[in-house]
């Protein structure tokens, strides 16, 4: 109830973000229901049904990530002094965040169920009824238990992820939770005692995993053609891509995700190298400091973008009007959900970082640092990130698509 009450008074932007989560959840729910419908209509084709279900994992993961980012950025679930004093501390608030995430995801799933039934023609006597019954296999009856289980998957997963990710960390002596500089008195901050893992630690791992993925792809690409009914066939390729090729692609994407924070950090180092002026100094150091927070979603964004570029490379010719179309509307929906979620997550993370810096921004304003300088620093940061990450993404997309297109 409290989460609903807090949502009632929330800023429209916050509500919009939750609505986006619900929409994304609806998209994933729809995809899951479609794969269920296919499985029910074609009881013989277990292999194809399984592949369809497995492909739903990508949008599912993207939505869980987006829901987590939104919950982390939600002002209603930040620890607040007043609420902590009356017993609504970080523990309760993480539960609250999980609840509100589950609510938005369940709303989306319910909407997906309604739309699915409507399009199949199960609701009857409504204008759109049965508009896509051919595509959605409207003849077979839907097993309710299985449908509800699949729809409950996303709320449960995202709520669990929220509860785990937002649970309060272990309290350390001398550092009050939620307050960095606020504690009064001689707050001795032992630097060595809480030295966090540097954000660039993942970079070597990321680079080596990307290299492994590309090498695997190149190796498998030269090997003999795989059995035609091997698992995880790419859509639109009759001969079927072997699991090795797909595994290599996935490894390269994973490497990009891991390398994201490190890349962001070194962008910051590069930016503030030499004898920087105020703008370059602020921009570079901010980038280094927020490398983990911004770099991870950026890495995911890069991975998805390189996947999309590789797909364009592979199927670019097939998008012409003539010839067989490899992508059905459902593949398009899945891809749209993934890309929208990943982009929205990156934007949310950037907003989150800005909000965390609001204290510092206020202090700089008191010193008379003009707002134009801060805006300039933000622009420089985005430009540098773009200049470094965009070519990298393109190169990796080209390299992953090379063996696949042969």
């Amino acid at each position, binding site marked *: 109830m409290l989460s609903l009450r807090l949502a009632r008074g929330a800023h429209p932007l916050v509500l919009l973000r939750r609505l986006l989560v619900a929409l994304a959840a609806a998209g994933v729910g729809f995809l899951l229901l479609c794969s269920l419908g296919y499985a029910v209509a074609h009881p013989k084709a277990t292999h194809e049904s399984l592949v369809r279900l497995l492909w739903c994992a990508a949008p599912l993961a993207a939505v869980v990530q987006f829901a987590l980012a939104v919950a982390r950025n939600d002002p209603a679930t930040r620890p607040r002094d007043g609420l902590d004093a009356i017993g609504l501390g970080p523990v309760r608030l993480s539960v609250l965040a999980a609840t509100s995430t589950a609510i938005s995801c369940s709303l989306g799933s319910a909407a997906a169920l309604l739309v699915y039934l409507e399009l199949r023609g199960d609701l009857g006597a409504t204008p759109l009824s049965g508009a896509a019954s051919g595509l959605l296999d409207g003849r077979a009856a839907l097993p309710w238990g299985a449908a509800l289980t699949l729809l409950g998957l996303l709320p449960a997963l995202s709520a669990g992820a929220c509860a785990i990710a937002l649970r309060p960390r272990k309290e350390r002596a001398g550092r009050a939770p939620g307050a960095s500089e606020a504690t009064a008195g*001689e707050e001795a901050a032992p630097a060595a005692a809480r030295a966090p893992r540097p954000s660039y630690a993942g970079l070597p791992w990321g680079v080596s995993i990307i290299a492994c993925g590309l090498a695997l792809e190149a190796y498998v690409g030269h090997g003999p053609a795989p059995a035609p009914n091997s698992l995880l066939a790419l859509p639109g390729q009759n001969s079927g891509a072997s699991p090795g090729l797909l595994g290599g692609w996935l490894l390269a994407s994973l490497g990009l995700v891991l390398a994201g924070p490190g890349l962001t950090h070194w962008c910051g180092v590069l930016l503030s190298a030499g004898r920087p002026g105020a703008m370059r100094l602020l921009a570079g150091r901010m980038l280094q400091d927020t490398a983990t927070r911004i770099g991870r979603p950026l890495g995911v964004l890069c991975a998805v973008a390189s996947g999309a570029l590789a797909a364009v490379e592979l199927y670019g010719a097939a998008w012409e009007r003539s010839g067989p179309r490899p992508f059905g509307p459902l593949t398009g929906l899945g891809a749209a959900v993934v890309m929208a979620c990943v982009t929205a997550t990156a934007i949310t993370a950037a907003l989150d970082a800005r909000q965390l810096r609001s204290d510092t921004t206020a202090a700089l304003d008191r010193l008379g*640092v003009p707002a134009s300088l801060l805006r300039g620093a933000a622009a420089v940061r985005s430009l540098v990130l773009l200049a470094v990450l965009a070519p990298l993404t393109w190169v990796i997309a080209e390299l992953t698509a090379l063996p696949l297109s042969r």
Partner: protein
Amino acid sequence: MVAPPDNDVLWARGLHYSYSGSPALTGVSIGVREGEILAVTGPRGSGKTTLLKCLSGQILADPGEVWFNSAPVHTLSRSARERLRRERFGWIDCRPHLVPELTGWENAALPLLVRGTTHRAAKQTATEWLERLDVGDCARKRPGALTQAQRQRIAIARALAADPTVVFADEPTAPLHHTDRAQVLRTLTTAARSHQITVVLATLDEESAALADRTVTLVDGRRGGAIPAPDASEGEGRAACSVSA
């Protein structure tokens, strides 16, 4: 409009300010002479911070006038007031409010860098001030690795390194222990006197006020001791107490 007296570097008349309806300043007039250390004392909530913010041009009094070096501040645009704060004023808050990503000397040199001073000159000035304030060994550390006293000294160095005309210090010793408090305050006042910097110091304790040349007391947004507040008489409060009991 009456021109301010010549020896006042900063001069304000009839300052009123209220935070969305709740009054913080109700008619404060004040003059700050060149090179002096002026203490503004008063209990919490008496409007010290608001007065300092008005004087430094962070907020605009409504109504009220602020003059700096015989030029009006209250008629300036926001960007002009920002430039004034950047080039002529220094600000020390009750919390250090350092930029967490920057090292000690970079924090202290930030106002100079923003002004467009060269990197080398800014670094040299900032390091000199850090040495003077006994935090020279913190120059290469981030604020997260320092104690609160060290951070506050870096904040003071940041305010003084930019060679301001007036430094506003809003309870600069609030987060410190007794020994640190005395030392920090003494360094601030000594540095200000030796560099002819005017200091407006908001403080709670009498001890700090003793280091100042002059003391102005604020009570409920008014100059204390000047005119008794007419509507906050004792009788009203007593009546309210008896009703609630």
